[in-house]
Each structure stands twice: as C-alpha cells, then as structure tokens.
C-alpha cells in the first residue's frame, strides 16, 4: 500500500464508520429497535473492514518514482571537508 493509499484508507475508514454509525442510530431510533441499530452498524463495520483491511489494487496506484541508480554517480554525496574547524582537543 503506497502513501496515497494509506491516506485514502484512513480517511475512507473514518468516513464510512461515522456514516454507518449515524445511519444506524437514526434508523434504530425511528424504528424503535435497538437490535436493528446494532445489526446495521455491525454490517457497516464488516463492510468497512472488507474494503480497508486487504491490500486492494486501488490503494497502490501512485508509485513512488525512485531515481535511477546512474543518477547517483552524477551527483556524488558531499564528502566531509578536511579544512573545517579542527577540534579543540588538539594538543600543543
């Protein structure tokens, strides 16, 4: 799962659970049935987990573009300079 996929998964999970919670509560309250509320919410949690938990392909759409290894040679890592300030520990 790539970075964008992780963000999508988290936001989708929160949105779905809140919506299912609201829908379940309103339905249960209107019908006067606590059991209906729990069943709707339970179904919502199962559905959300089926969408969020497995690593579905649509979570892996934006691939990170790593630099080609040849680029490394063109831009060498800066070396530590020998002319920098010396440590004070130098003995006299």
């Amino acid at each position, binding site marked *: *799962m790539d970075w964008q996929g*992780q*963000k999508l*998964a*988290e936001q989708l*999970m*929160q949105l779905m*659970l*809140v919506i299912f*919670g609201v829908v*379940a*509560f309103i339905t*249960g*309250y209107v019908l*006067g*049935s*606590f059991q209906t*509320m729990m069943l709707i*919410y339970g179904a919502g*949690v199962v559905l*959300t*987990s089926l969408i*969020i*938990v*497995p*690593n579905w392909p649509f979570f892996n759409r934006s691939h990170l573009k790593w630099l080609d290894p040849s680029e490394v040679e063109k831009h060498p890592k800066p070396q530590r300079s020998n002319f920098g300030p010396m440590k004070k520990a130098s003995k006299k």
Partner: protein
Amino acid sequence: MHSFGYRANALLTFSITILAVICGIASFSDNFNSPSPAAQVQVLNINWFQKKPDGDDEVSLTLNISANLESLFTWNTKQVFVFLAAEYETPKNSLNQVSLWDGIIPSKEHSKFWIHTTNKYRFVDQGSSLRGKDFNLTLHWHVMPKTGKMFADNIVMSGYSLPKAYR
C-alpha cells in the same frame, strides 16, 4: 496504515469508539421519555395476623395489584424490575420498608398487568407494632436499559391499615 495488522487495529479501535458514542447517545435519548405510569393495589383480605413466638408481628395479605407501566418502556429498555413495598412508621424508625411482592417485566407487551396474589415475601415487623398500623403500599420500579443509565421511581398509595387485634 501500512500493514494488514495496523489497519485491522485502527479499524477495530475506531469502530468501538463509535459504538461507545452511539450507546451514549442511546442512553441520553431516554431522557426525552416522560413516563406516566399508573398503579392500583387492593388489599382483598387479611388472611391471618399473629405474633410469632419470637415476638415479631407477622401478617398475611391477599393483594390485587394492577398496573400500567407501558410508558416506562423505550427503545433502549431491556426490562423493568418492579416491587411492592409496605412502608410505615414506628416510634423507633421513621421509615420501615417490607417488600411484599416483586416481578420482572421483560417487555412492553407484559407491562400492563394485574395479579391476584398473597404476599410473596413475609410481611414481618421487627417488633410488635403492626396492630392498628396505617401503612402505605409503594410500587417501586427500576428501568434497566440496554445501555447506559438506570432509572428508578415509585408510586405511593396510602390509606391502608391493619386490624387492631391478632386474628
């Protein structure tokens, strides 16, 4: 959210948080219910009234209890526990409560009832002060919710009295 276990964990904890919020609101919604229960008790007969060997008074009653507790039930009510108590005053104690009968009402369909019964639990005074005693019969109830706060209230019915002599 990078791994299977992490996502499962996040989903579980968040879904339980929402569940707790839902249950909290469901409990809160009970406050919008303003019940208007009604109850009536008749003492049909005083079967016997005696002093026990240890000196305590005991009386046996035949009661007719009728009540309509339908309005106590909301969508968040699991059951209602109801009990009838005799309440009276003695010189020693300002309030004596003796439970005479109780019952569990499992649903709204059963909450409008009448019952013809002798006292289920013994009506014994700790002492011998029941002769000629005026007492109240009080119907207490506890509403047990599916989630959240428990409610309790009662109806006091006064004007009952015991005979002046043992029989």
